């Protein structure tokens, strides 16, 4: 009996118990760490690392420290880290091989900074690049009017082209006058030349005939008639020349009348149909919005795929099948009923502390029969509230996202196409609210963004990069202080049909109409001045040419007349004996008759 009281009895036994307890403590920690790493790696599809774990059985508490979720692409880098995870485990379900965490706390969560090189790599990916040419915008906002806007801008560019004076009536008229004058001048030249040539020939022939009158008796007799014909032609030519100024005057009057039509014609040429402001909103915002929506859809689809894969994939290490006996309900392997979250994140470029609660997070949501809820709240410079539910209890999965973010600092945004029309929205403060529901494949909801203190900077494409338009557009858009955008979601995840409404489109449309009108007026004025100058120059030229022609031809006609005059005076009809005259005097029966 005494031996039970001696230290020789208690010490080795006590030490043995202490060693066993210590070993059990260490072993339980290792088992808990291994179980967490395996189950979460299976759930997340990414390696989970735990630095330290401790199990306090009498408090039903498990503590994990230095948790890391590895990047699926780069295993040596963590995408999410947490300093501490403390879980209060319900003991009773453990007897039934189920882990139920009543409450827990995950603190010091921070996400790894975005790897910009990977983002750039993704951006240069041919698949991604192919979606930046407007096809992504077309996917999310079918028929959002990209082509219509491109056409409209091309039309505007065409209308504001500099060289359209040729289309004006006065210019066309003066061109016609010039062509007519050119023909007329050529005709007069030809006539004059012809007359000169004929006169010369006549002179030569006359000189030859005078040398031998008897031989050229007929010619000499016909010469007065020829001369009178030539003189008549000279007179006609002179008359034509005299009427030329009158004709030119008449043409000038017709050109002046056409000039009056020019004003109307120029106006009609520069008349542009008003641009559809909501189409313009789509044109500017669709691509940018589509990228964000595509990312969101990828996240939702990724979550669903991983959930589906988890439920379909058989456990690789599992042997045999677990039979469910009659009256037994299948249960989720682990359930986290309530987990408080606390961490930091960079929201819109600003470090923000946030808190949240995760409810009914389980390994098999369908078995747990409760909807997973995540509520996050951030205070400070970017007040944010996010409420997400992931419901896998029904036939079709149902996911909802409700976001309300006040005073978010939005970075600079480049909207539109710099080759045609782009608007750069400077950094601004905005309010973002979104309510998105994805039920099965069906997508519905609304996203609203109100931006304040915006600064819009327009950029026109190469053809429209006119200083007048750019400055006018910039001036008009400088007055815009706030923007409101609403995106209505519809369709399905694979074939979305969303619509965008924004005050940006009307503001830009109004500014562009105003700028185009102003530029059009200036262009019209320049066009009319240019046309008037062209017309005046052409008319002056024609007049000068006509004066020159008139003077040169008149002198030539005078010369011809002077040359014909002596011929006419000397070439009198000859009264000579001729067989006919003689024949008339001879008797009818004369032999010489």
């Amino acid at each position, binding site marked *: 009996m005494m031996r039970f009281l001696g230290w020789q009895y208690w010490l080795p036994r006590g030490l043995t118990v202490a060693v066993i307890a210590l070993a059990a403590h260490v072993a339980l920690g290792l088992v808990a760490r291994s179980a967490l790493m395996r189950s979460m790696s299976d759930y997340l599809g990414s390696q989970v690392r735990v630095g330290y774990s401790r199990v306090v059985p009498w408090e039903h508490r498990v503590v994990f420290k230095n948790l890391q979720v590895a990047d699926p692409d780069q295993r040596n880098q963590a995408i999410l880290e947490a300093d501490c995870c403390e879980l209060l485990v319900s003991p009773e379900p453990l007897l039934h091989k189920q882990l139920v965490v009543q409450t827990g706390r995950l603190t010091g969560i921070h996400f790894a900074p975005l790897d910009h090189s990977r983002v750039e790599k993704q951006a240069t990916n041919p698949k991604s690049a192919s979606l930046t040419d407007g096809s992504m915008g077309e996917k999310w906002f079918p028929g959002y009017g990209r082509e219509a806007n491109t056409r409209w801008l091309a039309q505007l560019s065409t209308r504001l082209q500099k060289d359209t004076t040729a289309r004006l009536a006065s210019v066309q008229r003066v061109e016609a006058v010039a062509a007519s004058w050119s023909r007329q001048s050529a005709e007069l030249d030809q006539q004059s030349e012809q007359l000169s040539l004929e006169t010369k020939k006549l002179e030569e022939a006359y000189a030859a005939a005078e040398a031998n009158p008897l031989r050229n008796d007929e010619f000499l007799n016909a010469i007065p008639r020829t001369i009178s014909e030539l003189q008549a032609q000279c007179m006609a030519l002179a008359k034509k020349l005299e009427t030329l100024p009158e004709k030119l005057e008449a043409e000038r009057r017709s050109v002046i009348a056409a000039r009056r039509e020019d004003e109307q014609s120029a106006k009609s040429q520069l008349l542009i149909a008003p641009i559809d402001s909501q189409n313009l909103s789509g044109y500017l915002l669709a691509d940018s919005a589509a990228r964000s929506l595509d990312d969101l859809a990828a996240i939702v689809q990724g979550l669903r795929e991983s959930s589906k894969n988890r439920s379909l994939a058989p456990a690789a290490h599992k042997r045999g099948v677990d039979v469910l*006996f009659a009256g037994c309900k299948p249960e989720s392997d682990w359930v986290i009923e309530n987990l408080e979250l606390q961490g930091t994140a960079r929201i819109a470029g600003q470090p923000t502390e946030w808190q949240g609660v995760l409810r009914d997070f389980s390994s098999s949501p369908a078995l747990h029969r409760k909807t997973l809820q995540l509520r996050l709240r951030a205070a400070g410079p970017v007040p944010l509230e996010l409420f997400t539910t992931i419901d896998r209890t029904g036939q079709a999965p149902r996911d909802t996202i409700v976001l309300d973010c006040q005073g978010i600092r939005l970075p600079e945004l480049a909207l539109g196409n710099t080759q045609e029309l782009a608007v750069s929205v400077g950094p601004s403060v905005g309010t973002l609210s979104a309510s998105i529901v994805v039920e099965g494949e069906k997508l519905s909801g609304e996203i609203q963004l109100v931006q304040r203190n915006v600064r819009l900077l327009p950029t026109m494409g190469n053809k429209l990069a006119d200083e007048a338009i750019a400055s006018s557009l910039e001036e008009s858009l400088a007055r815009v202080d706030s923007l409101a955008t609403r995106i209505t979601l519809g369709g399905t995840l694979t074939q979305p049909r969303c619509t965008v409404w924004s005050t940006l489109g009307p503001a830009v449309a109004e500014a562009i109409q105003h700028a185009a009108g102003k530029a059009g007026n200036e262009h019209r004025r320049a066009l009319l001045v240019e046309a008037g100058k062209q017309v005046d120059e052409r008319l002056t030229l024609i007049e000068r040419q006509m004066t020159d022609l008139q003077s040169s031809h008149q002198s030539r006609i005078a010369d011809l007349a002077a040359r014909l005059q002596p011929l006419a005076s000397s070439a009198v009809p000859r009264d000579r004996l001729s067989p006919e005259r003689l024949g008339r005097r001879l008797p009818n029966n004369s032999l010489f008759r």
Partner: protein
Amino acid sequence: MVAESISFIRRSANWFLASTAPSQLAIGFTLGMLIGFVPKTNLIALSLCILLFSLRCNKGLGLASAILFSLAAPWTDPFAHKLGLMALQVDTLQSTYAAAFRLPFGPWWGFHNTVVAGGLLLGIYAAIPVYFLSRIFFSGVQSVFGQKPGARLGLDPERQPGATE
């Protein structure tokens, strides 16, 4: 050279067999076979292991047997699965199974798994013939390798009065 080889074989056989009766070897072997047939992540396997280490049997042979039969499990699992499924689908026992399953630690036993149930049944069914056959076999082996020089003269310390069989 030949003598050294024989000596090595004798020493190895003694390491497994020496100081152990054929019945203890057979118990170890049979329990090892049972452990080998059953998947290990459940209380049945743990209980069998405790049983192995609690009984007076050859632990080394039991562990070796467990490893050997575990390696053969991929070939026995399909049959064990069918057997277990048949046993677990007996209508009249459903309420019993369910009641047992709902008890604390019920799911930890793993008997609701077809391979566990089938492996256990297969092991139990094979245990008696395996025990007797292995006992005969080990008796034979012991008679060949287990006798030490001088045993016939009563010089073997294990044959001395007071030595356990």
